[in-house]
């Protein structure tokens, strides 16, 4: 083709990036890699090929990690951990800073290797992924530097196990490695089977940063290797990014082990376009939302919700824009989309799309390369929420769309999903944007933008998109634990048995359940007598069952939204008023406690009043943060109520424990369902009238007495319960964590360790964090 031909046609032509240096690095290792353990490569074991999905060619052989390999890696990490954690924060900062610089100095090599292994356009790996990796290490160098100052009373959890996905191999490595190292943890990282190479290169480079041996270990392999990392008894914390399905399996596998866990899972993130949006910019936003990294993005704006009046125009613009996308060799600098990561993934997407006959389908008119693993940009408009494609994560370049009429309906449709990772809102009306953003159940909301990331801003999901945040101070907390000795196992409070000669005095008292602000009889119609230590019949306590839990959760769900909409000042007032009424009835309560426990109850009542004051005080002081992200605008980190919290109250302080649960729950806008102390259940009944007279709205606090294990099981499985806390004496932690997989609720369990309810641990920052979730709202601006 002559220059004059091109002059006439004005085609783009090829703009290839050289793969030579990356291939030379692979060749320098004879094309075969072992694991990176204790600061060096092991000899390759049984290997498998990692391929270039754009060509299908083998890039290298990597080792399938065995249980023995994982043992060796964890052992190395364990050996290194103590020294690493004892280093002054500045020493860790120095090394993290060097890692950031190393990433910058090797940007081209890392980007090209990433593209070879994953199929993503080299423009993205060069301009987006690798710069974000460097930024993550810079930011966390800073957190390490400030560690002693800013994170007092916290200690590293220990050895971390990280299992990361194939869509952002190096970036997800950074999201795990940088905070872990900053916190003083050491790490065993298992990269994805399809994309292990940049992790190995990074590990090798880390020696040039002076990273001590064993602090970072990389074990390659498939899911079995990942499972071995997760299951290893010396791994104290598991950080996983990947599919919701595997996330569930990891939750189940770690249940009851005491391992800390964060999960960053799938999504079906809504992309909401109102009729007053800059529609061209919204369409361009979709390119960044769903045609970024071939749509293989957990937070991809994959569900277009567009206001009905502009839907036709928007769809026409989307179709035209799609046709202008260029697909091709990921190493070509003039393409928009590269190859899917693996033929398995492409075939999965194709099967999902083929399974939906409905909708108005448009496949981009851009030509696909003759060979390689490509899938065309696709729009399926006119689907209803009932279509599986509107509900299931496709994880490919497929956009589905439906319309809405009003902002309220937009929110309803946006939230009509099991997931809750991210959302985009497009409107030129500030009132509308700032009204809608907080009502979207998503960990990240972008206003007039999409897929913005920064190390300073927390990222992570709600609902079945997982839990925990990565980035920001909140992200570092996931690698830390309170620096205090583990509590002793709680002493089971004696449940006085029926005396031979029952002492029955006064007028019969009939305790009930407290559901929706009313005292109700238990569904099962059973109760048990409660005896005082001296053999007096204190009353009968109803035995709630799973149907009572169902009713209580229903009441809590109905009440929670309105309670969260109350002003913080209003919630504080209610808690102060509750404290006031509790104090006013203090003598009665103290006498009641004494009768139930055989101990003087005065101190516990006073402590409960103080605790309610604490939470009343906090109600209007959980302030969130503004994050200095690199854009003109702001990212707000807003603590939002978790939703409906279930809780198994402790025995060791029946009144104080219950109050310590409902206090933070109410303060931040949650509703709760509490299973009172097993030994002293009647204390709850003393609270019912107090709640009634203190303007606590019906349904925000519910008590269901009964057998803790049965009730905890019902709560753990219930999919409208957003969080479940367990402080009970019975060994319920494992069961609760395992049961929580239904909706991946946030669990906070005691693993059979007692808490000092009387001191600061009974009202510490853990309660604030457990009762809230950080939502990050990105608000770019400029006229």
């Amino acid at each position: 083709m002559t220059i004059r031909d091109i002059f006439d046609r004005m085609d783009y032509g090829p703009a290839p990036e050289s793969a030579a240096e990356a291939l030379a690095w692979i060749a320098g290792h004879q094309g075969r890699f072992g694991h990176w353990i204790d600061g060096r490569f092991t000899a390759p074991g049984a290997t498998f090929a990692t391929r270039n999905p754009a060509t299908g060619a083998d890039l290298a052989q990597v080792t399938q990690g065995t249980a023995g390999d994982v043992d060796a890696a964890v052992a190395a990490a364990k050996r290194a951990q103590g020294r690493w954690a004892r280093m002054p924060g500045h020493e860790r900062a120095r090394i993290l800073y060097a890692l950031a610089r190393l990433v910058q100095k090797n940007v081209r090599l890392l980007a090209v290797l990433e593209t070879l292994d994953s199929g993503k356009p080299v423009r993205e790996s060069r301009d987006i992924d690798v710069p974000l990796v460097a930024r993550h290490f810079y930011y966390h160098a800073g957190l390490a530097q400030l560690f002693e100052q800013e994170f007092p009373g916290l200690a590293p959890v220990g050895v971390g196990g990280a299992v990361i996905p194939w869509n952002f191999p190096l970036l997800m490595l950074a999201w795990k490695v940088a905070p872990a190292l900053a916190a003083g943890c050491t790490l065993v990282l298992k990269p994805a089977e399809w994309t292990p190479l940049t992790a190995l290169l990074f590990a090798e480079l880390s020696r040039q940063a002076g990273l001590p041996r064993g602090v970072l270990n990389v074990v390659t392999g498939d899911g079995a290797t990942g499972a071995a990392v997760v299951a290893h008894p010396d791994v104290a914390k598991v950080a996983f990014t990947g599919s919701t399905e595997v996330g569930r399996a990891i939750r189940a596998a770690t249940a009851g082990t005491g391992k800390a866990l964060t999960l960053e899972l799938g999504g079906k993130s809504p992309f909401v376009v109102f009729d007053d949006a800059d529609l061209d910019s919204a369409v361009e936003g979709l390119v960044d939302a769903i045609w970024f990294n071939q749509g293989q993005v957990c937070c991809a704006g994959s569900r277009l919700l567009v206001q009905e009046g502009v839907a036709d125009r928007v769809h026409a613009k989307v179709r035209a824009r799609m046709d202008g996308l260029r697909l091709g060799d990921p190493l070509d600098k003039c393409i928009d989309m590269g190859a899917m990561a693996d033929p398995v993934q492409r075939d999965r997407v194709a099967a999902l799309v083929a399974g939906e006959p409905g909708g108005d389908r448009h496949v981009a008119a851009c030509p696909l390369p003759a060979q390689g693993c490509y899938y065309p940009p696709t729009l399926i408009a006119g689907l209803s929420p009932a279509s599986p494609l509107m509900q299931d994560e496709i994880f490919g370049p497929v956009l589905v769309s439906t319309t809405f009429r009003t902002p309220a309906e937009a929110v309803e449709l946006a939230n009509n999903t099991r997931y809750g990772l991210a959302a985009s809102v497009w409107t030129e009306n500030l009132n509308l944007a700032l009204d809608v953003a907080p009502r979207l159940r998503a960990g990240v909301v972008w206003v007039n933008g999409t897929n913005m990331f920064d190390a300073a801003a927390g990222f992570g999901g709600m609902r079945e998109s997982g839990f925990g945040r990565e980035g920001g101070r909140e992200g570092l907390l996931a690698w830390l634990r309170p620096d205090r000795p583990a509590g002793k196992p709680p002493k089971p409070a004696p449940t006085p048995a029926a005396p031979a000669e029952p002492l029955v005095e006064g007028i019969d008292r009939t305790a009930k359940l407290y559901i929706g602000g009313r005292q109700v009889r238990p569904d099962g119609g059973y109760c048990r007598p409660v005896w005082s230590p001296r053999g007096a019949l204190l009353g009968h306590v109803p035995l709630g069952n799973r149907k009572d839990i169902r009713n209580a959760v229903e009441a809590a769900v109905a009440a929670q939204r309105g309670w969260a909409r109350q002003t913080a000042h209003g919630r504080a007032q209610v808690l102060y008023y509750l404290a006031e009424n509790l104090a006013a009835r203090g003598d009665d309560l103290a006498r009641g406690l004494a009768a139930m426990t055989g101990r003087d109850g005065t101190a516990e009542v006073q402590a409960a009043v103080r605790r309610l004051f604490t939470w009343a005080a906090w109600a209007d002081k959980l302030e969130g943060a503004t994050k200095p992200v690199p854009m003109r605008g702001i990212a707000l980190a807003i603590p939002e109520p978790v939703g409906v919290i279930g809780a198994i109250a402790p025995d060791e302080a029946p009144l104080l424990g219950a109050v310590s649960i409902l206090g933070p729950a109410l303060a931040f806008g949650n509703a709760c369902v509490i299973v009172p102390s097993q030994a002293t259940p009647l204390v709850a009944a003393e609270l019912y009238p107090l709640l009634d007279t203190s303007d606590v709205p019906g349904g925000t606090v519910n008590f269901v007495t009964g057998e803790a294990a049965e009730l905890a099981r019902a709560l753990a499985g219930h999919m409208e319960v957003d969080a479940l806390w367990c402080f009970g004496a019975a060994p319920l932690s494992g069961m609760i964590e395992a049961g929580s997989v239904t909706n991946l609720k946030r669990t906070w369990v005691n693993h059979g360790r007692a808490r000092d309810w009387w001191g600061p641990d009974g009202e510490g920052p853990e309660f604030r964090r457990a009762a809230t979730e950080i939502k990050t709202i990105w608000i770019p601006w400029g006229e």
Partner: protein
Amino acid sequence: MQTQPPPPDLAHPSVGTDLVPQTHSRPGRNPGMPLDLDWVAAVQANTSAIERRCASLPGRRSVKKDWQAAWLCKAVSLIDLTTLSGDDTPGRVRRLCAKARQPVRPDLLQALGMQGLTVGAVCVYHEMIEPALRALEGAGIPVAAVSTGFPAGLSPWATRIAEIRASVAAGAAEIDIVISRRHVLTGNWQALYDEMAEMRAACGAAHVKAILATGELGSLRNVARASLVCMMAGADFIKTSTGKEAVNATLPVSLTMVRAIRAYQDRTGFRVGYKPAGGISKAKDALVYLSLMKDELGHPWLQPDLFRFGASSLLGDIERQLEHHVTGQYSAANRHPMG
């Protein structure tokens, strides 16, 4: 304006880049339409999002080797080679016109196989039309004149209209008018429309480019609205700047204006041209602008009847890049004849 039939772009549609459904397009000059204030009021332009798109464009579109050479030749063919100085003389204009005829050294054009390449037009003040026309005789290069009290546009109205008529009578094929910025800044769209329509009428057969002076309009939303109103009033081209404002052509302004052109075509079927002016001095920038036009509007906007660069120093950088393409060595400014 070069009179050529609608470009035969459909003969070889460039791969998937024509954003606008071609079935909508109607041939011929934009006749304008009644002022639609509802449409003007509904216009939105989100600055941050527009800036993000512009920031990612250079990284998304890159042309190399022969393609780069061809694209740079294309850029040359789209230049309105301009001199707009108080000290312009016939001699200075003759020199510029000679450069317009032979913008790139003949040996380089021969090596590229691009003999006969000229710039798109020569752009001068009214008094320089006559020497320019004489210098360009037989070259097929149109002469454009800036008009209407350029650059501020604050001369008496009758003077401004008379200036257009005089320049057309003197032989200018294209008239670059300046709009009254105050109409935009005060939201007086009717006045802007009336002004533009009357200027267009005064141009007669000469094509009219409406200079919005975007650096003085305050916001991208205003840029988008002013673009629409000028197109409704019959502008053949919309142009960013006089080159005399503090801020001239930028990518965000350009994206805003080409989106308006696309919206106008979607609604009316008529194609309006685009001319960024001022501040485009590097070959690399020119390539980004061309890819912006190709991606946002499609192949027809890579032809001189729908796209021009208003530039004076851009050509020099392109010449150096073209010599580099031919010889493989970096070039020097003094190896290329000045204009």
